[in-house]
């Protein structure tokens, strides 16, 4: 399998990349780790005339604390996310999620920015970012702007990115110290996309849920933020009856496709099972 011909560009700054992509319009695609785009190009499902490789742009790399947030450069690889002591201490759900993505070779190269910007409903990080209330930094022709992860996804492979835009970083508000978290992913085998997956971040106070946020992966055209389910759980002790009601509310917003991973009804139920498990594990990890 050989991709179609293209011209290769390797800018050294975001400004240069945005300028190139803006002038190329629909003939140009940004290349991050390439582990979604190159397979698509080999199948000729993507045939960009120009690739703008972001790998030479040092300002897109790195993980740093910024006040009460952490900011992760878009070209940071899953491998670097897994190895980050800062993230392990502040936002441990990212390591847990990264370890469930693809396989070791893919994680060395695949980037966080590519994972969240591609708009593939099978990608794991988007639902986690919705769960965490992350914001994406986007640089475009008209300058930079910030888009909430919860507003970013519009359809399968369809996001609020416009032609010429580059997602430069992901900004995550650090969850409260002592928070509980879990990412539960059902997959057929290592390397597979989720049949269904659920991300949970919660805080407990006096045995009750003080705050809760839930994201769901690959059970709709976009990742989902299960706001209603989280609302039902807030204030509860995560007793079985309340969890059941919340799971029903989460299942109600899913609209998965029937495909090789199972019929739609099954995948909806598996989203509920993943959520139930994620809640139990997050609760066990939470302090107080």
């Amino acid at each position, binding site marked *: 399998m*050989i991709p179609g*011909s293209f011209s290769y560009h390797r800018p050294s700054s975001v400004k240069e990349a945005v300028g190139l992509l803006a002038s190329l319009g629909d003939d140009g695609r940004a290349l991050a780790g390439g582990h979604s785009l190159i397979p698509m190009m*080999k199948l000729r499902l993507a045939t960009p005339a120009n690739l703008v*490789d972001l790998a030479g742009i040092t300002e897109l790399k790195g993980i740093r604390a910024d006040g009460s947030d952490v900011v992760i450069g878009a070209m940071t690889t899953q491998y670097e996310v897994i190895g980050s002591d800062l993230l392990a201490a502040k936002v441990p759900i990212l390591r847990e999620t990264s370890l469930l993505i693809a396989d*070791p*070779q893919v994680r060395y190269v695949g980037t966080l920015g590519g994972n969240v910007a591609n708009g593939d409903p099978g990608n794991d990080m988007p639902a986690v970012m919705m769960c965490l209330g992350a914001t994406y930094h986007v640089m475009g022709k008209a300058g930079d702007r910030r888009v909430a992860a919860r507003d970013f996804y519009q359809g399968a492979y369809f996001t609020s990115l416009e032609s010429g835009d580059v997602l430069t970083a992901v900004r995550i508000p650090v969850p409260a110290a002592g928070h509980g978290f879990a990412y539960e992913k059902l997959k057929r085998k*290592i390397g597979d996309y989720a049949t269904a997956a659920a991300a949970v971040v919660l805080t407990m106070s006096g045995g009750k849920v003080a705050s809760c946020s839930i994201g769901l992966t690959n059970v709709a055209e976009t990742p989902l933020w299960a706001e209603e389910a989280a609302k039902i759980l807030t204030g509860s002790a995560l007793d079985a009856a309340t969890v059941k009601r919340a799971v029903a509310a989460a299942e109600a917003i899913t609209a998965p496709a029937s495909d090789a991973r199972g019929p739609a009804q099954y995948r909806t139920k598996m989203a509920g099972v993943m959520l139930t498990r994620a809640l139990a594990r997050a609760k066990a990890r939470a302090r107080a």
Partner: protein
Amino acid sequence: MAKSQVSMKVNGKAVEELVEPRTLLIHFLREKLHLTGPHIGCETSHCGACTVDLDGKSVKSCTVFAVQANGADIRTIEGMANPDGTLHALQEGFREMHGLQCGFCTPGMITRAYRLLQENNNPTEEEIRFGIAGNLCRCTGYQNIVKAIQFAAAKLNGVPFQEAAE
């Protein structure tokens, strides 16, 4: 399309070639450099037969363009043996432990295991299995592949290899 000049170090040797941007690293290695150790298995980033070591990372060379590897330091199975020509501990382990049947996955397995042991010189069986999860053996000879890597780890650490009881 205009060709691009790429230069990189492959198995310690500097190479310089003109390539089409669409040339995948696996095709560059096999067809330009005649390094046919890295294999083309699935061509869909799943099987790991094309795994090479690139700047200290295990990568699937079917999913990297040669132009992306410009300036990189690459090692393939051809560069795995010791400088004196004797087998690397991993190669010896695969031979001693019967770590291959048809042998198609072996170059990728060994190259991947090489990086795994660089990062973790004494992995548990579970860590080995998780670490080679991106490499498929269609003979399903995983049991002996894991043993081969344990053998190599023991040898590199200078301790006797103890096969776990079955």
